[in-house]
């Protein structure tokens, strides 16, 4: 089975459409959304509508910290992020709000495990940003393959010969063999707000039969996405982050 993993869409409709088109063209048979559908971007309603639609056709979706914050205000976010969340609260309808509120924090889909932040304590939204954090996450997940979002930069953690997790920076577009006799943790990257100074949307791709993972970057009209953020009256910083990929 070929599975596309998309995370941290952040209300960026242009980026989501581009990634879904790319995934379909490559023959994706299943979609897994790893959370953070809202926040930062200007198109929360359109993005959530799209996700609701995909879930009704068999896609998996889990909850991210921005999605959770719609109902439970948190001091966790900076002003710009708060402004985008306020915008999302105003533009989402009640069914969409209920859909997000009802999403699970984790999904166990043996031999795979899906979580937005870390399986070690999903509700604490800890970042998997080091081999040690990756170790805690895979230990808690208990599966061969763990797929994670939250951190916006793509990364592949793998179990070294002595059982410790090691970090590997993947090269986009390269199919990497990931044998089932060791544990792997993929940070799939951000669809809607990449932060590695490259504006192209990121997602990841698993070919189950071949045991290969491919990290992908999809160029899209990020200038249009930034323009919609400005038109919506959201903070300027959110627009240029999308423009510059920071």
């Amino acid at each position, binding site marked *: 089975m070929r599975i596309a993993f998309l995370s941290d869409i952040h209300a960026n409709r242009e980026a989501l459409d581009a990634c879904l088109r790319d995934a379909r063209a490559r023959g994706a048979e299943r979609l897994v959304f790893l959370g953070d559908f809202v926040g930062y971007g200007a198109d929360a309603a359109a993005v959530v509508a799209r996700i609701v639609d995909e879930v009704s056709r068999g896609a998996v979706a889990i909850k991210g910290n921005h999605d959770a914050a719609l109902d439970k205000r948190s001091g966790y976010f900076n002003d710009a992020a708060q402004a985008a969340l306020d915008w999302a609260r105003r533009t989402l309808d009640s069914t969409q709000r209920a859909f997000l509120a009802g999403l699970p924090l984790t999904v166990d889909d043996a031999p795979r495990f899906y979580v937005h932040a870390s399986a070690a304590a999903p509700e604490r939204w800890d970042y998997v940003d080091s081999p040690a954090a990756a170790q805690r996450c895979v230990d808690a997940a208990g599966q061969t393959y763990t797929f994670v979002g939250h951190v916006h930069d793509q990364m*592949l953690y*793998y179990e*070294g*010969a*002595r059982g410790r997790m*090691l970090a*590997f920076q993947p*090269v986009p577009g390269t199919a*990497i063999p990931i*044998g089932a006799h060791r544990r792997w943790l993929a940070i799939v990257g951000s669809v809607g707000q990449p932060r590695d100074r490259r504006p192209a949307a990121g997602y990841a791709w698993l070919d189950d039969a071949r045991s290969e993972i491919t990290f992908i970057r999809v160029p899209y009209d990020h200038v249009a996405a930034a323009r919609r953020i400005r038109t919506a009256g959201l903070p300027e910083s959110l627009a240029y982050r999308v423009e510059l990929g920071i």
Partner: protein
Amino acid sequence: MSSSASDIDAARVPHGADIDGYRIVGALHAGGNGFVYRVTAPEGRDPGFPLVMKLAAVGPGQPPLALVSFETEAAILRRLTGPYVPRWVEASELSTRPYLVMEYVEGVGLHTHTGRAPLPADEVARIGAALADALHSVHLQEVVHLDVKPENFIVRPGGEAVILDFGYAHHARYPDLLAEERHFAAGSAPYVSPEQLDGRRGDPRSDLFALGALLYELTVGEPPFGEPETYAGMRDRLWRAPVPPRALQPAVSPWLQEIVLHLLEVDAAKRYATAAHVAFDLRHPEQVALTERASRTRALGFAGQLARWWRASRARAPRHATRVHAPVIMVAVDTEHPEDDRLPALQSATRQLIAASADYRLMCVSVIEAAPLGEGPSLSDTASGRHLDHVIRLRHWAEPLGLPESRLSLHVVESGDAAETLVELASANHVDVLVLGAPRPGDKALGWWRSTASSVAADVHCSVHLARVPFGD
């Protein structure tokens, strides 16, 4: 660790045994990580070339990491292409009975050649260039072998070398399963590079150090650092200067010592940048720029070794290997028409390419008409005089570039077919970019260029840069 084929426990896999349809027809070798057998293909699945199967040594008493090097080889060899590696067939599911199936390469193991060393310089150069060709092909595919040693090369009857065993190799696009396995994955004691002993595995120049150790052994009959049996003994090479080959064998040519010691530099940044540059020097001994390395005839004394030890103990190794951009650039200069206004355009194109490269080699080539049969009255009418004439013109063309001797080489070649000659030279010398003059519309007198440029562009394996005169007619 290794034993001869006769030592292989026949009971392990008996002759004639069947493994997933592969039939064992002979035992070749037993090594630290497994056993190698000749096999025949399952019915209906004959790939059209002879096969070997590598069976992993698994179970009690076997090295626990042997399976990891199997996994590494399966991932990397599967993706390597070209005539310098065995063709890949398949790997079994490694969690059951681990084996790899690949091409059986006909030829002579390099250890046969090291076994009859010291060899004459031209033979060292010929074998060495073949090894460098093979390494360059692998390096271009983003792989560092990291266990270059005589047992891992087969020299085919035609002289080309094939690299075996990618169990310790590093691929820039895959997670390194052997990261942090410093002792296990360090390579073989006589040949391993200093930086591998510090756990750095991503630098193609590590293979060049090992190649240097091999060429040293072929030249003088023994490896430069002996065969240390301890890790501490291997670490001596971080500071100890090898005894110069000429101190052991006074007849060794300075150019060969220059190449060998250049490869054996402790600091990877001081070695050759690429295996292509090594192959080039081994094929053009007369063009090797000699330095102080070539003139050493005595081993470094105690004070000198102490100074090296002191420097090494204070040096801090860079954390990450960087891949250097070190192209071989070839420029075709028509010295038969020195007044051609495209020659300055070729110069400026060459200048731009050089400016963009950290390290490079520039080959200036002039293809001239085959020499006339008779000898005329003056020197410039003789074949050698004509040849010299064109070398002088070529040097004159290259002069304004102001290049050091170590970066520049001049080649005058007689040929009736310039395009074919340029394509062959580019391929034989691992050229990355070929610069030549663009054909000019309506230029009847120099129609030569038109056909050369277009057929070279169609046939050559590398990038082609066509230099044009701006606003020329």
